[in-house]
C-alpha cells in the first residue's frame, strides 16, 4: 500500500489513523464489491472532481471527515493504478475483458468508443511519473487493439462455424 501522499501532507498520528481507517473502510465496503481492478480504477477516478482534482465521497466524508476521505480515495486510486501498471500485457487484456463484461455494453461498441474517445486518460492519478503514465496509456491502447483483434477473429470464425453443422449434414 502506498501512503506517500498521506504521510507527507497530514503527518499528525491521529490524522494518519483516521485516514487509515477511511482507507480500510473504502477497501472493505466499496472496492471489494467491484469485480476487477480496472473497474475500481474507473470508479475511483470518477470520485475526483475534473476541475479541482479533489476527491469526494459523501459516505466516507460523513464517517471520517472530508480531508481524510479525500486522502483515502487518493491513496486507493494510486494503489489500483500501480497494480495495473505492473501487470503484464496479457493480464491487462484479461482485466479489460472483465471490465467490458461488467460494463454490460456490446464489446464492439465499447472497444470502438474507447479507441475513439480515450476515456481511460482521465483515470490516471495526479502526480505520477510521466513515463509511467505513458506506459499505462500505451498498454491500454495495445490491450484494446488485442481485444479488437480477438473480436474480429471470432467474427471471422463465426460464419464458418455456423456453416459447420450444415456442411456436416
Amino acid at each position, binding site marked *: 500500500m*502506498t501512503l*506517500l*501522499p498521506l504521510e507527507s501532507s497530514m503527518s499528525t498520528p491521529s490524522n494518519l489513523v483516521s485516514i487509515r481507517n477511511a482507507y480500510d473502510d473504502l477497501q472493505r465496503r466499496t472496492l471489494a464489491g467491484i469485480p476487477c481492478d480496472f473497474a475500481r480504477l474507473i470508479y475511483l477516478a470518477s470520485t475526483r472532481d475534473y476541475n479541482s482534482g479533489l476527491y469526494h465521497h459523501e459516505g466516507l466524508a460523513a464517517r471520517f471527515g472530508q480531508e481524510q476521505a479525500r486522502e483515502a480515495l487518493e491513496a486507493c486510486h*494510486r494503489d489500483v*493504478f*500501480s497494480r495495473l*501498471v*505492473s501487470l*503484464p*500485457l*496479457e493480464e491487462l487484456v484479461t482485466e479489460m475483458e472483465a471490465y467490458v463484461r461488467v460494463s454490460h455494453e456490446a464489446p464492439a461498441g465499447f472497444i470502438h468508443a474507447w479507441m475513439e474517445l480515450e476515456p481511460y486518460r482521465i483515470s490516471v492519478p*495526479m*502526480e*505520477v*511519473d*510521466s*513515463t*509511467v503514465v*505513458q*506506459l499505462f496509456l*500505451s498498454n491500454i*491502447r*495495445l490491450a484494446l*487493439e*488485442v481485444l479488437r*483483434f480477438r473480436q474480429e477473429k471470432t467474427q471471422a470464425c463465426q460464419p464458418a462455424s455456423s456453416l459447420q453443422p450444415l456442411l456436416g449434414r
Partner: protein
Amino acid sequence: MNPSLALAAAAAFFVALLLLSNRQEQVEEVEVLGSPGQQTHNRFRSLPAFSPVELANRIFSKDDREFIARTRSPRLQQLYKQERRKVALQWVRCTSREVSRIMRNHRLGSRQSTNLNVAAESKLFCQYVELRLLCGMLLLLIRLFGPHALMDMAAHAGELYQRLGRRMTDDVVTP
C-alpha cells in the same frame, strides 16, 4: 586509417549524439509534458511509483513481446513496436534529463565546497559522461532498430556464434 583521425571522428560522433539527444529532449519534452511551466510542476509533484530498473524491466518486458508475437498479427506487432519505441525513448530521455539535473545540483553545491576531492569529482564526471553517452547511444539504437534493439542484437550475436561454432566443428569433423 590514421588512428588520430579515427579518434577524432569517434569523438565527433559522440558529441553529435549528445547534441542530438539534447535537442530531441528539448523538442519532445514539450510534446510529452506540455509547456515548460507545466513541466516544472510535474517534476516537483511526481512520486516514484517504480524504480528506474523496475520501469525498464516493465518497458522492455519479454513476456509482453512474446504475448504479442503469439497473436501472429502483423498489425498488432507493428503497433506494439511503435508504442514501445515511444515509451522507451521517453524513458531514456527522462533518465538522461534526471542525471543532468542531479549533476547540475551537484556542481552548484560543489562550487561552495572548501575541501573538494579532485579524484572523486573526476571519477564522478567520467561516470556522468559515460551515462550521457550511453543514453545517446540508446536513443539512436531505439530509433534505428526498435525498443528491443540490444536484446535482438545480443540474440543475433548468440545465433551467429552458434552457427559459426557448428560450421567450424563440421569443418574439423569432415576434412
